[in-house]
């Protein structure tokens, strides 16, 4: 089979079955690694690290990375478009459905419950980032209480919290950029 077609189809399969975001693609990518040999498990782990340190969702990044290694820039584009293709079709259909039936009392009743759940999930995601960023949960087991609090990160978080509330007009990206610089200057890692 043509390599481009195979790349497109493999990543479209991942995009179709990975429900609920970037991390959900990892088990499928592990399987793809076993079946195609396009990348090793080690490369996948490196890619997860790279994805944490670059913009963009892990699934999209992995598609770009694998596509590039197999067939250069055009491979990178083909694999990425393959990954997003199934969800593009599905969301376009769901969007049409919502447009047509969005005002029905039944859809409104479902959305009433969904919105609260969605906010709960996003808050949980915030807490999980906070857990690994502000606290060092592993230190608890060793009895090293001082190591549990990531003091530098907590101070930065408190300052950022204050500044984002006080200067609401400032674009979030400005805060992200400033935090990156502070991370480098004060050796956050």
């Amino acid at each position, binding site marked *: 089979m043509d390599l481009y077609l195979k790349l497109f189809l493999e990543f479209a399969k991942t995009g179709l079955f990975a429900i609920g975001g970037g991390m959900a693609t990892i088990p499928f990518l592990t399987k793809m690694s076993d079946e195609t040999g396009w990348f090793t498990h080690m490369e996948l782990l490196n890619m997860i690290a790279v994805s944490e340190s670059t913009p963009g969702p892990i699934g999209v990044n992995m598609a770009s990375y694998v596509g590039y290694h197999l067939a250069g820039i055009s491979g990178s584009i083909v694999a990425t478009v393959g990954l997003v293709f199934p969800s593009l079709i599905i969301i376009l259909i769901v969007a049409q459905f919502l447009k047509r039936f969005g005002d029905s009392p039944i859809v409104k009743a479902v959305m009433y419950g969904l919105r609260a759940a*969605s906010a*709960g999930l996003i808050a949980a995601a915030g807490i999980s980032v906070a857990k690994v960023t502000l606290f060092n949960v592993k230190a608890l087991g060793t009895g090293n209480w001082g190591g549990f609090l990531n003091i530098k990160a907590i101070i930065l978080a408190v300052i950022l919290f204050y500044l984002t509330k006080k200067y609401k007009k400032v674009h979030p990206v400005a805060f992200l950029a400033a935090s990156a610089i502070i991370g480098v200057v004060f050796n956050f890692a």
Partner: protein
Amino acid sequence: MGEIIKLFLVFARIGAVTFGGGYAMLPILQREVVEKYHWATNDELTDYYAVGQCTPGVIAVNTATFVGSKIKGIPGGISATLGVVSPSIVIITIIAAFLSNFAELAVVKNAFAGIRVCVCVLIFNAVWKLLKGAVIDKLTFIIFLVVLLLSSFTDAAPANLVVAAGIVGLAAKKIGGAL
């Protein structure tokens, strides 16, 4: 045509600064899509995230498709989707070609440790804005809290939680006589 190009460019800009996936994108989406361009409301964004949890694909990408299609139909959806993934293609291609040890560089590690702190503050601010539309009475407060706890302390799949909350909402309105 102008609007379609604008969708591509705005979402490319959003994609370029989305560090840490879909949730981290929310504060940027609120600023660009809700406050600056008025393409969607905070409530609509919450809905898109809920649907994104139970449909295939990456949430950041699904949200782009939603907003694009709301503004300019199918071409708009395609344009916003391609926009949001294009920075990843460019950045990852550069890293794959030149910087195989990118994630190991000390400067990168430190910068991203700083960025992660900011991401968690921004996510909390973003949730605060969503709560006004999402938690409007006792029941929605309970749903919010239960989902938050289950998602934090159990392996419950987000898609199942969202579907269950939808059923609870439907049942409550039915019992309440609104349907």
